[in-house]
């Protein structure tokens, strides 16, 4: 129930195109887009977050990755990594 609420709140914001919550095995638990896209995102960004996290920790072992934003021409992808699940939000930004 709280999960629902949180997600609903995020999705309600202006500019959010899609939300994907996946677990570490790449299974999309809750998504607003179709399965194949979610799996694609899960697979690709899981690797990226792992890499980013290890990079951050290597520079400073006390540090940890809290958030990852990838800005591209068309969208911005925001990734919040958790220990078992990752939340990916895709947002369209207004120039």
């Amino acid at each position: 129930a709280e999960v629902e609420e949180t997600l609903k709140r995020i999705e309600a914001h202006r500019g959010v195109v899609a939300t994907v919550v996946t677990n570490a095995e790449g299974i999309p638990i809750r998504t607003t887009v179709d399965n194949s896209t979610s799996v694609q995102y899960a697979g690709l960004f899981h690797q990226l977050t792992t890499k980013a996290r290890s990079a951050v920790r290597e520079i400073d072992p006390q540090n940890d990755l809290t958030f990852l934003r990838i800005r591209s021409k068309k969208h911005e992808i925001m990734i919040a990594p958790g220990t078992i699940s990752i939340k990916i939000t895709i947002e369209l930004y207004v120039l």
Partner: protein
Amino acid sequence: MEIIYAYTRKRSEFGRPCSFSDWPAKVTLDIPPEPSLADDFILRNPVCSSVQHGSDMSEHEVNTENVTVESRGVNHVEGGWPKDLNPQDVEQTARFRKRVEKDEHFVNTVVHLGPLMEHCVRQNNAIDIYEEYFEEEEVAEAEDEPPSAKTINVIRDPNLTKRTAAHLSWHPNTCKKLAVAYSSLEFQQNMKDMSFDSYIWDLENPSKPELVLKPSSPLVSLEYNPKDSHVLVGGCYNGQMAYWDTRKGGLPVEVSAVELSHRDPVYGTIWLQSKAGTECFSASTDGQVLWWDIRKLSEPTETLILDITRKGLLENALGAVTLEFEPTMPTKFMVGTEQGIVIACNRKAKTPLEKITSTYCSHHGPVYALARNPFYPKNFLTVGDWTARIWSEESKESSVMWTKYHLSYLTDGCWSPVRPAVFFTTRSDGTLDVWDFLFKQKDPSLSLKVCDEPLSSLRLQDNGCVVGCGSKLGTVTLLEISSGLCTLQRNEKNLVNAMFERETKREKILEARHREMRLKERARSEARLAEAESTLEESPQEVLKRARREFFEVIEAERTRAETKHLRGKVQGMGRTGSRHRDFLPWGRGQGSPSAFQVKDRVGEEVAAEGEESQLPKGKEEEEEQEEKDAA
């Protein structure tokens, strides 16, 4: 002070065996130090001494075997479901999902991540942090970098016996593929083991051709169909035409019949603009231009014989070496011949005689390349013998602009598709020249030595940046030229236009002037012809006598000239105009005179005198000399 230790032995004692024995050390000489000597010397401080240590290094080169790499992609469709779960089963996956959602840890994480995410989303919505406050100003093109080019790829003929890369054709859309026609263009140099294949290369993989085209005889020219990029047409060394479809493999889909094709290698093939995109035409040194429809290659649809006397005789025909066609002018085309003449033809003329509209005597040797300027189609470039010339269609007498005579043959040339003032030429010493005639007219802007063997063909990609040159040993080198030479400069079109117009006008004025002078001369010579008509019925003897008489007149005139030291170059009674003109008028009299009058062409009377003597028939020589001495 010398220190000597003498060791003597008697001659009679030589050869005796030595018997050595130990002696204790004996002081032979003892020199004590003498400080007074030190006064002759001064202490040097500091002392410079150089020491160098260079580590020994050796250079070693290793080249590994070429590894063929292939790129493949994997597409994951489903995530990592546990083993016992069937991903296709919707119910099971739904159940799994629900189970995960109930998990407390999951709930905690999500709830925890929520505000974080919200924060960032709100941030984005609040301000666009990447907003550009100032529009980027137009960067002024102040780069005056010198033109340069770098080799990006080299493709070699994989066969053992190397053949010339006779023709290159880029794939029409992607420009990532290059079709190269290989053949040996030397006369009758076909060796038994020379392969007939030509290749299509993919630039990503220069070690192995993408497709091998197997014609029945080596290909001399090869072109991609600009409308359908899977179709290629090729002209063979034995005169046949063949066409390939790359989807169907390396053997030609159809080959033209041998009896109705050309009888010499097909040097030029070009696709025509037709609705079906299946028409092409070809030219060869046997003097014919044939039109084909590739759907029916058994016979040509149309023929044209390149006979400039307009009689349509194959014997008089000139052999064609290059063909040129501009899609914007679909009825006109041009042919460059072996004899150095460029023929402009109109395809839609009613009679075959009228098909040939005009000729331009361009070079001393075969015209190896012919290309219209893509921006100003009225001007075209011809490359042949040692020069490259630019012509305008209106001035038929001579070219509008030309390069100086080089030291080696020019083998191919083409315009840059992006810049109207830039063209490229290749030479037989392996050099590629890039000319920019807005910048420098006398020399090429960039001259690159591509390889040691002659370059035989040249082709530019449609973007104007990458140029491929094929050499005699089958090596195709791809060069990328610097951006200065392939981006349109400001005002370039106008300047080029102005330049072409100016040069064309100059040529027209010169032409008009020549025509005037020729008319005047003709009028004058006609008047004299009326006088000479009576003498036309001379016998050879009389002609000889007249020649002698005239010859002596000439000698007399020369001698008087030498004595009085008058202006050279003007001889009375000969009726010639000033010495340096382009058109030397043919003299309209009998045959005996030319020998005497050819003399006039040479400057300097000594040379002239010798010339006169050598020109005389042998029998008269002594007589003349006698008479000369008498006169002198």
